[in-house]
């Protein structure tokens, strides 16, 4: 396939007259970089006189300083950097806190959940046996998230608790019922595992269990 010619998207060489264009480019550059960029660095990279760059940067600083902007272009450490205005930090922080977090699971939790999903009902020792990992279980996390529930006790000495997945589990993974879980055979048919990511050495895994 051919590369799309992006010059069609309306880029013109920033000429002396086209200050709006240059200002736009400066805005984009300051947004994109994490480290403060000095006027000199920018001027050198874009091939424009430093005075001109400095003047336009100052315009940007002044514009973003207006109260209707929540962002600011600041001069820090001899360079320019975009950031949120300090007076809105609490509002932003509160907002971020309220964002419904996606279902996040540690690798250990995901492994445990996978074992329960496919082997249910199953006891904690059995899960550990399958996972080949000893140490603190993540069952509590999964119970708290209502992804698994207790399902009676196994009729062996010690009567260990059996675990199964819940309705919430089905909802979270978009399953109508458990029979919709892909079988391992189906998974393998999706193409041989090309061992994409090398398995972390077992020591690290065991260590992270305890951590």
């Amino acid at each position, binding site marked *: 396939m051919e590369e799309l010619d992006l010059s069609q998207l309306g880029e013109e060489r920033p000429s002396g007259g086209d200050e709006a264009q240059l200002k736009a480019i400066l805005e984009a550059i300051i*947004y994109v970089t994490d480290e403060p960029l000095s006027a000199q660095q920018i001027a050198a990279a874009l091939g424009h006189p430093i005075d001109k760059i400095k003047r336009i940067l100052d315009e940007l600083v002044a514009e973003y300083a207006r109260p209707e902007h929540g962002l600011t272009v600041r001069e820090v450490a001899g360079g320019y950097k975009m950031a949120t205005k300090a007076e809105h930090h609490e509002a932003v922080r509160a907002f971020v806190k309220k964002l419904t977090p996606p279902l996040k699971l540690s690798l250990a939790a995901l492994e445990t959940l996978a074992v329960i999903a496919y082997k249910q009902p199953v006891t904690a020792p059995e899960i550990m046996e399958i996972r080949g990992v000893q140490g603190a279980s993540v069952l509590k996390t999964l119970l708290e998230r209502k992804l698994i529930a207790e399902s009676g006790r196994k009729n062996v000495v010690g009567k260990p608790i059996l675990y199964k997945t819940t309705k919430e589990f089905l909802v979270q993974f978009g399953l109508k019922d458990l029979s919709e879980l892909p079988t391992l055979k189906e998974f393998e048919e999706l193409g041989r595992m090309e061992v994409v990511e090398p398995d972390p050495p077992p020591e690290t895994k065991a260590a992270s269990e305890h951590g």
Partner: protein
Amino acid sequence: MTAPLNFHLEHYDGPLDLLLDLIRKQEINIYDIPIAQITAQYLEYMQRALEMDVELSAEFIYMAATLIHIKSKMLLPRDPELDKLLPEEDPRKELVDRLLEHERFKSAAEMLHQKRVIEEAVWSNPQIEQFLAEDNNPGLAVTLFDLVKTFQVVLERTKSRPIYEIDKEDVSVPDMIRYLRNVFENESRSETISARGLFERQRSRRAMICLFLAVLEMVKLQAIGLVQNDSFGEIGLKRLKGFESAFGSEQTMTVIDEGYH
């Protein structure tokens, strides 16, 4: 007939791709495909691929058969009277429909590609890290696919479980006694359990030593016995009558726990 195209032998992603290319490169009207010509070119491509040891999948051969079938159908003379009563569908129609459908999706893929090119020229620089609370530890946002894949990984790991030293504090003799108790409880009463099997399942030297001591403890308690059917045969572990009285209450374990503390 000589092929009008320079075939890029490995280029085609399936027979539909090859046919479309033959048709479009020669500016053939897709609604009136000269089937004999295209079939010959198609077969020539397959021949060349064969000569160059390019592996062709089954669907290339199936398509060759389809083309020859269509060609033969078109050669059959048709009864003009019957045609009036029951107009026969063009034998090429089904193939043409598939080719057109395939081509539409090729165009759609091209459109997606162009959208990606634009997206590659766009950068976003979120700064959310600065606002995340420290206790908001990042985890994995997971899908069903992740779940299956994880299970697969767990099973793979079980197969090739390596021996490694785990934390020294992790396994003790009482742990191993509990482990053995569980093993026997899950087996039928008369079953002999292979000692070698039990040891092979251990993942550290310490675990093996603890298992060995645990076996001795349980033999001492007369909960289990050792059996060997022939002089150099496998050693097996067998549940004895004393098993119940030894593990019927937690008392035995309490004593052992104290003894090894």
